[in-house]
């Protein structure tokens, strides 16, 4: 099977996975207690208003009919109407998705821009204080609960130093702290990966040859070694995408960013299934595509693997 066939197969495989996601989300939300209509109307609402709203949303119909009508709408890219906010889910999601992408995107960029040089430095200066410090920082990065780190950063940079606003949305100054918080854990992993794969490459023959030919040390590192070492790092990128979006949930709550993560959590608590379905589907597509990317890159790196 060629790599193209493999990609095609995996993309086709997405459909059953996505279908399974929708079925599971649908069942969970109907299985766990909690009635979105009652939650939207409030406990004291009249029975009449309650019945009317259920009928309007089609929630009085049998479950399988509800599910199929959801699927039917999905083919027209219509995710239905939020039970709580009574607004089209696609419309609700639009702006929030952008917001989340802004956060995860900048976290990703930030983590790679800091981590790759750090990892390189650690590899080149290995077993020196620089190596220990940067790797210590990296390991600390993956060891801190992100919401705690978020609050700590706010206390330091917003409350003590007044460098950044505490929380909110709009402009780059609101983005820095959440992106750093979210990117920190990721940066740590990337830095460690860079260090180890660079170490592996550095001692290989062609690098030693290049060195022997009298090329400058940093030229060797950046031109030859890094290019090869980057491949596993890029592989990690694919896996990071899903992880970042998952991590964004907590960050968005701490920093009050109106993104899909925060929307998802409140929608789960309000049992607002159209929103939950919509967000889950988007997450699923992103994660699956990220994994596929990782798989393809993995195959590129390791010629022994064939599909």
């Amino acid at each position, binding site marked *: 099977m060629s790599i193209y066939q493999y990609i095609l*197969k*995996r993309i086709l*495989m*997405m459909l*059953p*996975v996505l279908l*399974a*996601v929708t079925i*599971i*989300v649908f069942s*969970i939300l109907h*299985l*766990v*207690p909690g009635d979105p209509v009652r939650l939207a109307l409030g406990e004291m609402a009249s029975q009449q208003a309650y019945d009317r709203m259920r009928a309007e949303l089609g929630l009085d119909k049998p479950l399988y009919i509800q599910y199929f009508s959801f699927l039917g709408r999905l083919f027209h890219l219509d995710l239905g109407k939020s039970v709580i906010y009574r607004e089209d889910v696609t419309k609700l999601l639009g702006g929030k998705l952008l917001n989340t992408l802004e956060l995860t995107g900048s976290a990703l960029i930030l983590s790679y821009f800091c981590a790759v040089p750090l990892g390189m430095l650690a590899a080149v200066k*290995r*077993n020196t204080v620089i190596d220990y410090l940067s790797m210590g920082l990296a*390991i*600390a990065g*993956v*060891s*801190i*609960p*992100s*919401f*705690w780190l978020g*609050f700590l950063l706010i*206390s330091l940079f917003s409350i003590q130093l007044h460098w950044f606003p505490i929380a909110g949305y709009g402009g780059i100054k609101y983005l820095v702290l959440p992106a750093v918080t979210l990117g920190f854990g990721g940066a740590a992993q990337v830095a*460690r990966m860079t260090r*180890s794969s660079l*170490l*592996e490459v550095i*001692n290989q023959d062609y690098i030693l040859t290049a060195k022997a030919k009298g090329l400058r040390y940093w030229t060797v590192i950046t031109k030859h070694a890094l290019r090869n070492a980057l491949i596993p790092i890029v592989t990690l990128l694919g896996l990071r995408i*899903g992880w970042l979006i*998952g991590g964004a*949930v*907590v960050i968005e*709550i701490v920093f009050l960013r109106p993104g899909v993560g925060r929307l*998802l*959590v409140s929608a*789960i608590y309000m049992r607002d299934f159209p929103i*939950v379905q919509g*967000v*889950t589907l988007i*997450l*699923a*597509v992103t*994660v*699956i595509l990220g*994994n596929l990317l990782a798989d393809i890159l*993995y195959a590129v790196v*390791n010629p*022994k*693997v064939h599909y």
Partner: protein
Amino acid sequence: MKRHKLFFNFSKSTNAIIGGIIIVLFFLIALLAPLLAPHPPNALSLKDALTPPCREHTLGTDEFGRSILSRIIFGARVSLNIALIASAVALGIGMPLGALAGYYGGWLDSIVQGLVDLTWAFPTILAALAIMFILGTGLHSVMIAVGVVYWAGYARITRGQFLALREEEYVQAARAVGASNLRIIWRHLLPNSLAPLLVQLSLGMGQVILIEASLSFLGLGAQPPTPSWGAMLSNGRAYLLAAPWLTLFPGLAIMLVVLGFNLMGDGLRDALDPRLSHIKR
């Protein structure tokens, strides 16, 4: 050059050693909790509420006047338990599925891949909510929930190892001699896949503790008065400004133990990774 290598080896093992010491220390603390804790962890003493760290209460008290130190000591039991059991659940699901996918390939591989995608694509909090509803809230649900959302990493690693290993000469040779699939998996592939799994296990234990903390942040963690670090950290956040010791110390405890697992995992990786072994040689 020789000295350099020696130094490098030494540093590699220092990582693992430091990590190992931290972990062993925390296991000891967990085991000896009743002996070590200066106060009972769950006894309320409202008049002592929010005492800053002092002589009587080394790490201060929480909003109910309970000793933070005692709760961290007893919390070690909870957090390490979660780390062990949730990881065992994850490994127990992930390794066999990954092995099947990697060895047999074909439609089996597709199904497992699909399940991996499904798990990764699924919001942790939703899965946790469903499991809590089915099994009831409490620690055992947290462990299972975390295990269920975390198995995919193990499956992926096992599968990747098997994919790479099954084409190796010694596996082909074993097959040529007529060894059964089960024997090939059990005797040849699994032992050779253990190293990365062990590394992942060590790193994963740290991750699991962090997941419990974020579940607590969303109100889905351990139930009161159970002293779980995650719950302490998330309950204390309302007091972040007025009484920072409520979050500082459980946060440090989590960080330290996760650090321990990560250092150990790192050390193990360096020691076990065949790709790095030529540096050692």
